[in-house]
């Protein structure tokens, strides 16, 4: 090939790089493992130093949840075509466009809203953007947060809203967005959310709701009680925990031009083709994006988490309305059972009288010691949220026996701590 080009060596092509910037030695990297079996052996050596949640009994949640991942979800997102595609046009990647259009369309039914974006990185990002959208829409610079929010998520929001937007505790006419997290970090389902919507709207603010779509087979869609923007993470819908690698964010609004104009992310729309009855797809209102107008666009857009969107679509198609209802019912029942069982085992269950979905906190004398003691018994008992608080998560994957096992262990640990 060099010969055909008429070049003496590959060095010719690097002529533009000055000598003083050239690294004239090899990089300092480990010796390579050139055969596949050797690489597998090396990687298994590392992986075997992990204990995963199929080996221990895990009640960890706090933003990354152990829901069941249907085999068909893995089959589809493992397909070479979907796994290795990227930015094809609506023609050669017709399947990618359709799969993502179907994902947003199924989310739209769950949310009862007409506009849903192609996924952003994660629920934190989605929330940050939703709040920025609301402030741009209202032309205001304050946000009021409600519902308890995970510290990590708050950290992200604080950074991401800087410097344009400040957080406030007072609802008045300077507030651009009232945000409600439900279920919140404690799994608490907010009561009478419609009243909050009305209060927000009365001040001219948008009502932004953060939720988990897996709740929506049983919980009311926020749009039905007045949400203007809904956002959150879709990891629950068919993604493995993957040490936090399964996150993806959604943002949904009603179909109002001014709101749609505030999305930074891509929106895929259905369109006719030259053949009647045939569907094509394309970008809706592309000119709002940074791809189109750089810094004049809304925030930015780039590679985010499309494959998880396709996967969530597969999940919703497998589950259907009945499946979503059933999974919600099972989780509600398991959560309540676990709260009761742990209370009976001697733990102090916080907010016991509220409606909890999937999560609740227990107060313990020493959260670190409590969790370490459970870990000794092969149980990941919960996520530490303060020196005396542990967040416990149960999903449809947990059997009654699993919860009883936890309760027994908790009883023993607390008794030991008191002794």
């Amino acid at each position, binding site marked *: 090939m060099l010969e055909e080009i008429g070049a003496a060596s590959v060095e010719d*092509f690097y002529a533009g*790089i000055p000598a003083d*910037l050239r*690294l004239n030695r090899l*990089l300092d*990297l480990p010796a390579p*493992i*050139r055969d596949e079996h050797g690489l597998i052996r090396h*990687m298994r050596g*590392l992986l075997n*130093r*992990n*204990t995963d*949640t199929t080996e221990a009994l895990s009640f*960890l949640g706090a933003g*990354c949840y152990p829901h*069941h991942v249907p085999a068909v979800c893995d089959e*589809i997102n493992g397909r070479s075509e979907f*796994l290795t595609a*990227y930015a*094809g046009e609506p*023609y*050669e990647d017709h399947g*990618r466009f*359709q*799969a993502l259009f179907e994902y947003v369309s*199924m*989310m739209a*039914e*769950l949310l009862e809203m007409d*506009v849903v974006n192609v996924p952003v*990185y994660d629920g934190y990002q989605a929330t940050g953007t939703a709040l920025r959208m609301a402030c741009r829409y209202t032309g205001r610079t304050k946000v009021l947060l409600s519902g308890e929010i995970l510290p990590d*998520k708050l950290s*992200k929001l604080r*950074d991401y809203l800087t410097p344009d937007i400040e957080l406030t505790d007072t609802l008045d006419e300077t507030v651009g967005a009232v945000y409600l997290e439900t279920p919140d970090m404690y799994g608490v389902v907010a009561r009478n959310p419609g009243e909050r919507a009305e209060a927000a709207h009365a001040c001219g603010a948008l009502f932004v709701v953060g939720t988990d779509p897996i709740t929506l*087979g049983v*919980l009311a869609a926020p749009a039905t009680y007045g949400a203007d923007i809904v956002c959150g993470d879709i990891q629950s819908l068919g993604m493995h*925990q*993957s*040490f*936090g690698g399964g*996150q*993806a964010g959604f943002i949904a609004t009603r179909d109002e031009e001014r709101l749609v104009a505030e999305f930074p992310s891509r929106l895929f729309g*259905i369109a006719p*083709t030259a053949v009647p009855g045939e569907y*094509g*797809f394309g970008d809706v209102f592309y000119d709002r994006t940074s791809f189109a107008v*750089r*810094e004049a666009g809304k925030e930015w857009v780039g*590679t*985010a988490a499309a494959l998880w969107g396709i996967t969530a679509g597969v999940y919703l*198609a497998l589950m*259907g309305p*009945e499946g979503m209802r059933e999974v919600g*019912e099972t989780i509600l*029942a*398991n959560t309540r059972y676990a709260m009761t069982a742990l209370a009976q085992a001697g733990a102090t269950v916080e907010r016991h009288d509220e409606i909890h979905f999937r999560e609740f906190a227990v107060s313990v004398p020493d959260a670190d010691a409590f969790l*370490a003691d459970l870990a000794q018994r092969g149980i*990941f008992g919960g996520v530490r949220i303060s020196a005396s608080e542990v967040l416990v998560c149960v999903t*449809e994957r947990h059997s009654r026996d699993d919860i009883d096992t936890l309760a027994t262990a908790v009883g023993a640990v607390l008794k030991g701590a008191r002794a």
Partner: protein
Amino acid sequence: WDEPIIFELSVPGRRGLGVPRADLPAVHLPDDVRRQTPPKLPELAQLHVLRHYLRLSQQTLGVDLNVDVGQGTCTMKYSPKVNDGFVRDPKIAELHPAQPEQTVQGVLEIYWRLEQMLRSISGMARVSLQPGAGSAAIYANIAMIRAFHAANGDSHRDQVITTIFSHPSNAACAKVAGYEVITLLPDADGYPDIEALKAAIGPRTAALMITNPEDTGIYNPRIKEFVDLVHGVGALACYDQANANGILGITRASDAGFDLCHFNLHKTFSTPHACGGPAAGACGVSQRLVPFLPGPTVDRTEDGFTLVTPERSIGKIRPFLGVTPNVVRAYAWVMAMGSEGLRAVAETAVLNNNYLMHKVLRIPGASMPWADQPRVEQVRYSWQQLWEETGVHSEEIGIRAADFGVHYWTSHHPYVVPEPFTLEPTESYSKEDLDEYAAILAHVADEARRDPAYVKGAPYNQTIHKIDGTSLDDPRQWSPTWRAYLRKHVSS
């Protein structure tokens, strides 16, 4: 396949999956929180869901299926299948990020080792693997720059300088972070205009955010001068390394004096693009920016690997530690390559690019602005001449090329290069692949001369025919979901 929209396949009462039912009392939900009407999700049997999505997958064209050199700036390369197995292993797939540290030493070691590798490749002091993608890494970098200046009482610095051939996210992220954006245009030689830089810098400058080689494939030889100028006014220099594939082991961010840089693991380090993510970004920083890194970092101690939050951390850029599956894949890829392998990657990519350039420039009507400058790993070409002769636009050439089973991309906006197309053939493709790709372009260019209307009428050989996109920018007609479509186009 002429595959319907999934809602059209729905039959009431069908189910795709059984769900565990708790043998426990049901929880009663009060009206204010209970869903009143079931969501109108489609109802299908499992085989039918599977069949639908398998057919859609076959209508999608990934790296594994085609000669994927047409997405310049995005470095489409082969992602070894063996690495996907590590990610599917329950020892990764079923790990929770809040497990006790002693139960995740293996994955923490992978994070730590990959950081060491990227330190070596970039020359930077530390590298965060938290950002979810390249643009998120760019954002994390500007957030660190902002925190750095704030910590130094330099909050008056409110301008960021970038170049037109740097990725749009440099401009857009800086804007989100609160900066005014100044964009440098190329000089007569196609390099970022150093005189314009000199004019732009000053006490208000917070940072320079620049790609190199730029999206033209041209390496800016005066890059160190740029960095020095910026440093001279007390600002930081931040390197967008999305285009790093051709310079792995050849030159490093630290060599030119950069304070921050980023990599895209899904471009340069082989993790698959996944239809547009999940991806993974990495932020490298020099010593003085280490305290500002997103938290936590993975540190090595005598007792093993542990999570530490830097003292003045900007906080979380993303939930948890990062996109672990891609961190695992990237680590395995570098382990299989080693230092000589990475250098071979760069050299092969650059050779492939120059070979393809040699072929493309022989196609009548194709040209390359600033033809005198050498190209590294990609080239932004132009069909300006072909367009003048035939009226066929670059986008139309791409749609017709797809009839031959390949993908092709123009460029980011604005089209500084007229009628642009950007090819980056990476190390994964063979001479035959490049010959085939060039032959397809030559064929389509020839068609454009002989019958421009035919090329403009494309596609002819794909799942669907020419899309009428007029509705997509019309609020009364656009249909970003099926329910919007039914409301606007069917029920009315």
